């Protein structure tokens, strides 16, 4: 007879080893679809590694890809800590990006030290607004934020199409639905010559460090964790639960908005409707792999970015569908979820004679 019982304590080694093991299993699991696609498995893995570590350019591409994932991963991690299910980072990212081009693509002319902070603040505010709305619908009407944030993603994407065909459309864009480019003063500078990795990465790393300190060492972070662990108890202890949720909504949405700002002002320069290949949703996987810890988000984002960049490069050279990357990412989410079970419970064997009655 098998019995499931709670673990008395989870060791640090276990907590750290769990996401690593999940990642390894997900990557090894990719061998099955690779074989199915008729690719030579060892060569494919070799190509993936080469695609990330094969050259300085490849490595910088990975860092470029990790940048928005750090932002969206933080957005999910902080919200999930408070049990606020923000699944809307994808939409909030686009709100941030729209705000960035609305102000930064010629609406005002100002020196960089004014324009760039303005773009960042407005992008943050737009993303935050995108999460405040569903949070208010939750606290005032009890409307489930999972469903509202998911649906808002679609609404915002449609709004984006409208803006790119109308008010934000580049008059010199040859009819393409894209915005005018961000002015030179508003561009986030690149970090290395001839590489695409840009200073959005620095902002992301600072954001992660600040989030970690705030979460672990501030009253705000304490309240947020208390609300997430037991909302009725937190309310009983005099914590304004709704206020706490609203404040984490602002931070979470703002971080997702920053992902959009960073992509548009640091990488692309102008806004199109395909700015994000699902960074918002992938951020959820990043946050889960990180065990909802802000510094862990950085590591997890680097891993997920490696999977995407490595698999993309492999799929280009070997003709395997690049959906393989999404497959690995989703498998690592499921693996880390199952791993979470083994972190909290252990399975023990009880004597077969005593267990016949099923008493536990």
């Amino acid at each position, binding site marked *: 007879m098998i019995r499931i019982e709670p673990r008395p304590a989870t060791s640090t080694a276990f907590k750290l080893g769990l996401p690593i093991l999940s990642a390894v299993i997900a990557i090894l699991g990719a061998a099955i679809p690779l074989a199915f696609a008729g690719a030579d498995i060892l060569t494919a893995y070799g190509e993936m590694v080469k695609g990330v570590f094969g050259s300085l350019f490849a490595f910088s591409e990975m860092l470029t890809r990790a940048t928005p994932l750090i932002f969206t991963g933080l957005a999910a991690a902080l919200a999930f800590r408070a049990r606020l299910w923000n699944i809307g980072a994808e939409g909030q990212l686009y709100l941030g990006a729209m705000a960035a081009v609305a102000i930064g693509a010629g609406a005002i002319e100002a020196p960089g030290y004014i324009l760039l902070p303005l773009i960042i603040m407005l992008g943050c505010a737009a993303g935050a607004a995108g999460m405040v709305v569903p949070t208010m*619908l939750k606290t005032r*009407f009890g409307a489930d934020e999972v*469903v509202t944030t998911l*649906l808002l993603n679609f*609404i915002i994407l449609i709004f984006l199409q409208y803006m790119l065909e109308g008010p934000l459309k580049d008059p010199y864009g040859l009819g393409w639905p894209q915005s005018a480019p961000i002015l030179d003063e508003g561009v986030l500078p690149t970090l290395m010559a001839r590489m695409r990795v840009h200073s959005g990465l620095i902002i992301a790393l600072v954001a992660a460090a600040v989030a970690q300190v705030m979460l672990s060492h501030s009253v705000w972070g304490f309240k947020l964790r208390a609300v997430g662990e037991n909302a009725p108890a937190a309310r009983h202890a005099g914590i304004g639960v709704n206020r706490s949720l609203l404040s984490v909504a602002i931070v979470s949405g703002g971080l997702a908005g920053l992902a959009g700002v960073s992509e548009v002002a640091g990488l692309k320069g102008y806004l199109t409707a395909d700015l994000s290949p699902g960074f918002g949703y992938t951020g959820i996987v990043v946050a*889960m792999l990180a065990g909802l810890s802000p510094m862990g988000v950085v590591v997890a984002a680097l891993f997920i970015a490696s999977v995407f960049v490595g698999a993309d490069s492999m799929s280009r050279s070997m003709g395997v569908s690049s959906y393989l990357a999404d*497959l690995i990412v*989703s498998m690592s989410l499921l693996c880390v*979820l199952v791993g979470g079970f083994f972190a909290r419970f252990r399975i023990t064997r009880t004597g077969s004679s005593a267990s016949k009655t099923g008493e536990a």
Partner: protein
Amino acid sequence: MLDILNILLSDSFWAASLRIATPLIFGVLGALLCEKSGVLNLGIEGIFVTGAMVGWMAVWLGLGLWGGVLAAAVAGAAFGLLHAILTVPLGLSQHVSGLGVTMFATSLSYFTYRTALPAVSSPPKIEPFRALDIPVLSDLPFLGPVLFQQTAFTWLALLMVLLVWYVLNRTPLGVALQAVGDNPDSVDAQGLSVYGLRIGAVVAGSALMALGGAFLTMSAFDSFFFGMVNGRGWICIALVIFASWRPGKALFGALLFGAFDALQVRLQTEVGAVVPSQVFLAGPYVLSIVALVIAARRADYPRALLTPWFKGQR
């Protein structure tokens, strides 16, 4: 105004409403079954994609239309089983597991489609379900076009509403299923298996969801393309709350939704010059949020929804 009245009185409008509602009927019923047993299934969006892809591919491989329906249901059930194992005996977060299943099902479906059909410029077509042609009935005025010129797949959806209603309200199984979503301890005390009931409900519900996806590729359209599900699964999750977990109201909600969607397409051609088309495109999603906000206050959630239950632990 007169134009809207003309639209509302036309049989083609109501026929379109029922056609648009069909995948939602499957999806809402499926989500309802899962949630009645106490398990939220956010895998629905991915299971729709899988149903659409597998159903289409089965027909394309020559298994026939009903073979495609069966294949889609089995594929949906398989992902349902995955979600059920993660959330019922393992008791893991239903939110995260559901999103994980959506991502896994979607990427696996896309990968399989791309691997089976590398580099097709236009997606290959199948011969989809045809409109029924029942002697006498199909020729009735109004009712003929609205009800009896639909495809058999739509009739399957209507049949499923009856079946789910009957099982939930008129059979011992249904009573147990409702109880397990409200008070699993009482079900356990009666010697019934909480795990078995919940896993069964999630597997059956997921099979229904997959049929909603299959309808898209096998009846509404005749090919599979990326992004075709486009949030329909999430809309179903909102509609279940709107329908307060009752099959009859679920049918009503899906039809209301279908009618609104059919109306906006027709209005778009009338006033398209004045109002940007995106206003109409966003309509269904806005409507879902509005329905959710209206229904949320008085929503009578299954009491054990989202709460894992472990045997021998009270």
